[in-house]
């Protein structure tokens, strides 16, 4: 016990899973307590938020909105992933490289300025949402994918050369198959961005519903407990997906477990 206590403040030392769980629980409890003690008045206390969550999840209409957001986010993620993967792989063919470079730079364009344009270009609210989402996520996806491709060791390409693979076979072996596990990791990391963007995008086209719309409405009526309740739900769902995608990676690509610091 003494040893673990010492280790938990020593950089780069490894602690057991059990100790980690204890640390997480203890630190969360402290955070909740702090929230409880400071959070009276304008900020609703944890118990009031809990009440609001229970009230929310017992309402049938909540699930409509909830699954709308989940559906939209899955659809957005799915399409973005396909587009981003294509753009990134194609970037290795010189003629397509400028396109990828441009897409990456699109991170600096703000969605808010483009809503008008997208409204003109799309037919209805759900199309508008999907296109905004795509526009928001793809540049981040491509950025992460390209940085994975950039960090591939030259020696891996050299190995392919000495095995007499041609450039297409090398691309397939090293970049596509060899880095498939990392695509999942990119998906996991960027799920956060898309999940965050969901509520924003939903706010731009309120008539379609979703958690984002709920959030904005509750904000308008200063119903802060509900706002916090939705936030907590969004937060938990995010963590759940993060975990699921992480496990999916280990399950599909068992070798990835070997490359992590124990």
């Amino acid at each position, binding site marked *: 016990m003494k040893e673990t206590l010492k280790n938990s403040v020593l950089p780069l030392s490894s602690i057991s899973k059990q100790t980690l769980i204890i640390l997480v629980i203890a630190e969360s409890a402290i955070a909740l307590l702090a929230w409880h003690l400071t959070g009276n008045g304008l900020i609703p206390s944890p118990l009031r938020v809990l009440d609001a969550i229970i009230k929310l999840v017992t309402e049938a209409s909540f699930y409509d909105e909830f699954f709308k957001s989940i559906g939209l986010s899955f659809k957005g993620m799915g399409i973005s992933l396909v587009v981003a993967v294509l753009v990134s792989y194609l970037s290795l063919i010189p003629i397509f490289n400028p396109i990828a470079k441009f897409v990456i730079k699109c991170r600096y364009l703000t969605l808010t300025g483009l809503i008008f344009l997208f409204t003109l270009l799309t037919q209805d609210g759900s199309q508008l949402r999907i296109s905004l989402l795509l526009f928001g996520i793809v540049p981040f996806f491509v950025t992460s994918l390209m940085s994975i491709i950039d960090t591939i*060791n030259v*020696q*891996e390409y*050299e*190995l392919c*050369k*000495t*095995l*007499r*693979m041609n450039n297409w076979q090398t691309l397939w*072996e*090293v970049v596509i*198959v*060899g880095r*498939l*596990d990392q695509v999942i990791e990119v998906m996991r990391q960027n799920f956060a961005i898309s999940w965050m963007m969901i509520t924003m995008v939903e706010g731009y086209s309120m008539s379609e519903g979703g958690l984002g719309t709920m959030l904005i409405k509750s904000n308008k009526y200063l119903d802060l407990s509900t706002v916090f309740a939705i936030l907590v739900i969004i937060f938990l769902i995010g963590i759940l997906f993060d975990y699921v995608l992480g496990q999916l990676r280990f399950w599909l*690509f*068992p*070798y990835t477990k*070997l*490359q992590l610091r124990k």
Partner: protein
Amino acid sequence: MAQHVYTKDALLLKADNICLKYGDKQILSDVNFEIHNIQRPNMSQGQVVSLIGRSGVGKTQLFKILAGLIKPTSGTVTIDEDQHVVRPGEVGIIPQNYILFNHRTIYQNLKIGLDFSGQKVSDEQEKSIIEDYASKFGLSEHLKKYPMQLSGGQRQRVSIIQQVLTGNKFILLDEPFSGLDILMVDKVIDLLIQVSTINEFNTLIIVSHDIENALALSDTAYILANKEGVAGATVTETIDLIQLGFAWDRDIRQSAHFQELVAQIKFKI
């Protein structure tokens, strides 16, 4: 000292006036050497040549040039009967840090070598060839593992077999003895002797700063060093270990005469 009966005939590889510059810095200057096919009666004796030099002298760069992976600033490397300029893929390489495909199991890593060898074999045959090599080199129990689960020495053996399976007659090894303990070094030497005698045209080129082990394995050694007044490293000495009676004897490191040679060379690199 054993005197062997042998002849040297066809030219297999020729490094002709290799120069390499990075910016203003001359790394290699006029590196010349030739590798000829050695023949010994009643056996398929391959060639083992080492390039010995101290750290930073340019061995790895020369290694890449010999493999056709980088182009020298001037000069050529030509191989085979028709002495054509080497192309990447014609010379197998075992780099300093034994690169393998981390997303493939050992079996699949070996299989990919065989797949690109150009020879058509059925899945059945493929399996038996791989299992055969694996058992010969003590890897049978590791075939299902991933490279990250193997020790450095094991990875190196996989790397060597992978290159042998591609059917390359030339195999370049960059520092094959570094990071191995004494027993492992002996194992690698045995392994390389085996590889060099599988086929009479098999040619191993070892790039190393480990004088003793490199010499013990080789039939010819070239010293790569800086000559006074010349920028960049070049071949300063050729050691014919067959003539000296030190070649093809796996216990040669115990000979006092051999150790004398090792001691002399230490001062020349």
